């Protein structure tokens, strides 16, 4: 076992037009690696746990930067940094859920360079996988975490399918709650996909966490006006209050009228490979007052279908508690 920390020899492309980037990415296909802020790139490559022939650096593409208003909400360039999201006046005013989520990602230094696209596209953080073990997700036929002795405190309690890793993204659940649309371009053109369909679990494709495939570039994220200025609740519980991934997070958007919850989208992060939508909770609280009583009436509804591993039973009460906090509106 050699411990590498130099970048491997590889080509570097620095396109300034999306079309050029797509052309390069299409030509290189699986041998190319898209990089924005690089926070989920350099570790993989320096550790030699993953390899590529060439880096395609997107940072020079101006059209993928900036936050602008649209006829139905806002469009956030894929290269917008997490810090920019936390400081943008429109996002802070209308979509504070996303600003809060972005503000809890990692550390200030990482937020300064890490992009929204990178945060939602990042690979899972299962430590076995990251160490380069040949697990299911890496193409092997074994999961090291889902065993009687596996160190699986941070892993999934829902929807495991061979792989038990969870989504590490803090902004992903918030975007799904806001019914965001992901703008993806490739050589065939542009397609717009609901955030809810952007993330995929191991049951669909164990090698990928999103629908992005070689040649695809996530160029922007659109947030419709539907949930603008709604009532939001975000909370992330991690071991540390900075530079850490969520043990469980919650992102909730609610329409509350005269104290009554008319509609909601409630998402939980870090409990399965994708942001988990709690439709049963949404249904249970619809038409109910937003208060302690409604929160308590949920009991363990959120976690009732969970299948915990050896070391992560705690995620069930934690998830239930966060749901209650979101519903009652206070920590």
């Amino acid at each position, binding site marked *: 076992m050699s*411990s*590498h920390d*130099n970048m491997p020899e590889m080509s570097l492309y620095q396109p300034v037009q999306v079309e050029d980037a797509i052309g390069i990415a299409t030509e290189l296909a699986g041998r190319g690696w898209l990089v924005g802020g690089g926070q989920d790139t350099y570790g993989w490559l320096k550790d030699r746990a993953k390899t590529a022939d060439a880096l395609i650096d997107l940072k020079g593409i101006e059209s993928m930067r900036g936050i602008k208003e649209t006829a139905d909400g806002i469009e956030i360039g894929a290269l917008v940094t997490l810090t920019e999201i936390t400081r943008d006046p429109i996002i802070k005013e209308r979509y504070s859920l996303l600003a809060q989520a972005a503000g809890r990602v990692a550390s200030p230094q990482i937020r300064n360079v890490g992009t929204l696209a990178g945060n939602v596209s990042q690979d899972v953080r299962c430590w076995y996988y990251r*160490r380069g073990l040949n697990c299911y997700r890496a193409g092997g036929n074994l999961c090291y975490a889902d065993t009687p002795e596996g160190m699986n405190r941070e892993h999934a309690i829902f929807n495991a399918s061979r792989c038990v890793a969870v989504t590490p993204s803090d902004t992903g659940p918030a975007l799904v709650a806001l019914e965001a649309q992901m703008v993806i371009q490739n050589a065939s053109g542009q397609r717009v996909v609901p955030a809810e369909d952007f993330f995929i679990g191991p049951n669909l494709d164990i090698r990928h966490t999103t629908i992005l495939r070689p040649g695809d570039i996530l160029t922007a994220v659109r947030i419709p006006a539907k949930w603008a200025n709604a009532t939001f609740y975000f909370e992330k*519980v991690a071991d540390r*209050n*900075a530079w850490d991934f969520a043990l469980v997070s919650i992102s909730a958007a609610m329409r509350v009228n005269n104290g009554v919850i008319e509609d909601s989208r409630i998402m939980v992060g870090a409990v399965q490979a994708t942001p988990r939508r709690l439709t049963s909770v949404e249904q249970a609280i619809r038409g109910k007052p937003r208060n302690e009583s409604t929160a308590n009436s949920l009991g363990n509804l959120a976690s009732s279908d969970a299948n915990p591993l050896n070391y992560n039973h*705690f995620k069930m009460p934690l998830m239930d508690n966060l749901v209650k906090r979101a519903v009652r509106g206070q920590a």
Partner: protein
Amino acid sequence: MTYMHIGKDFTPPDVEGKVTGAARYAEDFKKDGMVFARLLGSPIPAGRVVSIDASAALAIPGVLGIFTADDLPPAPPPSNPALAKEWVTYIGQPILAVAAESDHLAEEALSKIVVEYQRRPFVVDPLDTLTEGGPDPYPNGNTLIRNAGEAAAGTTASGTDVGRVKWSIDQVAAFRAGREPVGAQFGDEWSYGDVAARFAECSTVIEEPFVTIGQPHHSLESRTGMAYWENGKCYFHGSLQSHTVGHDALSAMLEIDPANLVFINENTGGGFGSKIFPYPMMAVTGRFARKLNRPVQLRITRAEEFYIGSARSGMQGWIKIGLKDDGRVGAVDVAIVNDAGSGGGGSASSSAEHISIMFQPEAMRFRGLAMYTNTTPRGAQRGPGQNEMAAVLAPMIDKAANLAGVDRVAMRRLNAPRMDGKIGARQGGISSSYMPEAIDKAAQMFNWDQKRSLPREISATKVRGIGVGQGFHTAGSNGYDGLIRIAPDGTIYLHTGVGNLGTYSYAGVVRAAAEALQCDWDNCVVVHGHGDLNLPHSTYQGGSNTMFTETRSSHVAALDVIQKLKEIAAAEFGGAADDYSIGGERVFRTSDSSKGMSYGEAAQKAIAMGGKYSGMEYPDDIHRTTVRSVQAMQGTGLIGVAKDTLPRSGAVPGMAIAFCEIELDKETGKFDIVDYTAVAECGTVVHPKGLRQAMNGGGIWGFGMAGFERHVYDPQNGLPANVGLYQSKPPTYLDVPVHMNTAGNDMPDPQSPVGARGIGEPAQGCAVAALMSAIADALDGHLFNRTPVTADMIINHVAQNGFNTGNLKTNTF
């Protein structure tokens, strides 16, 4: 006592470089022709190296050679060889080094080297190897045995070897379940007093299990070294906590005369016990440079620093504590199994020592055993033994005090060591203790009397916890040398062989010399960090040792200077030396201050007079390192040099007491530290800002030990989970209080000329103990019996998820 420098803040000379980034560490040094060496580590936790084929690597243009265990002298078992010879005993254990013209080439070469291994069974839990029939981490056993008799008879190479200790399945099961392992074999035992009789007198007796994890050091500066040879001399840029005390050991590693080694280490980015003395990898750097006849930088990556940088020894144990009616500790019985990792050691006796001094039990028994595992080597880490015991002991002491109906702080004060305090197996004395006064001071600062009566419930989800804890470490030694030179221009050069491990103590200790010389600090130059700068033999920087030990040696060197100043003045103006005084950087006749000279003029006279005054002669009892330094400065000024032979007896205790208030969220398991107050019982405060830094830094690490830091090994494959900093989870700035209230007790130790003792290690111990105490208090006295206590454990407890504190395991968080 009114001092000129002691107790006053100053700006240590290295601060600016550290703030601006100008400070240089070992990896920053380059040399013309320098080549890069990198390590190849074992991918398996246990096995045998069958063969090494480096031919493909060596065929790469620019790859210069490999270095293996065959290039090193044999290491006696079970010490960790710098490079594995035959057996590998943990993942990441270095097998060989390869050197190339560039770092990239060296990495490429590593990927071309083929090593054939033969696997062996491995073990990551000390209790698994301790169980009869369980796997052994070494081919010939699982623990250190001493065979001094055989060594003396010439039948073994050393006095130690790897041997085997096993417990029955029932004994291990009992221990895992939190019961005494009756009849089990231990490797180390001591006791004093009639333990059974004293327990019989106790009205409150508790028995508890406990587990603490090991923690990697993860020094921010990895142990990269760079060495080159010129004219038979080795110039070595390294990263050690200490400086000159390691000189002879590093020379021995390189098999050269100490006079031919120049060790350069102006700044060290953390060591925490893992860099006190030269470590095995330094032999590879120096010898590889000699083998290639090129400057070699052996760069250690972050992951490698985890593997070879050692870790705190985890412990699994059982303790029985008895309190008498009045709250005095009558008896303690403690049994500890340490995880020594691969070839490392445990600190169980030090853990027991913590109990013995902090609570002065009338009788006590200790039993300890250190088991090897196929995990990273374990070694000293800030308060080794004492601090992890402080962590798990605090809530237990709280429980006992509460059962006895005694206030938790009053109970600690009642049992605290006083001037006649005793310590350890031999119940030896201590240099001094004002611990009751320190407890009073801290309790007042924290407002304990008011806070203890605050309601525990803050809201429907939040509860308050109030905690108290103590830290201890022996904090001083003696017998080292001080060295001062006054140049003809009057500049006072304060030479110190103390390493700059980041605490500023290297500069703080020589303030004792400036104090004695009554000189302006601006006229002093602290000389340190470079073997060519003529440094004295100074103490090691570990064990909270520096402040006591080196203020003494600085002081005796200053006394030597003063005596010589007076003799020079007497030779010039007549009379006896005793007729003269110093002041204002002058030596003058006490009865007529006009008859005198400046320090600079005296230095000029010293050069003219020669002999002992200018270093042409020197004391017989100084260390040879100091001798070389004096010889190099002969005739350049007035030389003051002396060995510390001041009286000393008993252990020198560094102690601290801390209080902690937390608000704990029962729904998330998270807590905020809303008040942290700590008082150091460290004698006279020499450098207030330095003390504050030590207490804050130690406090934060204590919080990490209590609630954050992790050490995880997968029992399926022996793979560590936390080779990186973010995985190890030291606390961040958002996990600790913005403001921490700290102070010194500031009562002088009579065995120090300036009254100072050390405090580095207790600063962590008191913090982890206070936070553990507060967590338990917030949860109605619930004992987790382990560190760390993390959010998931608290959530499980609140949810009654059945988390089993009695199932003792280490290396699982």
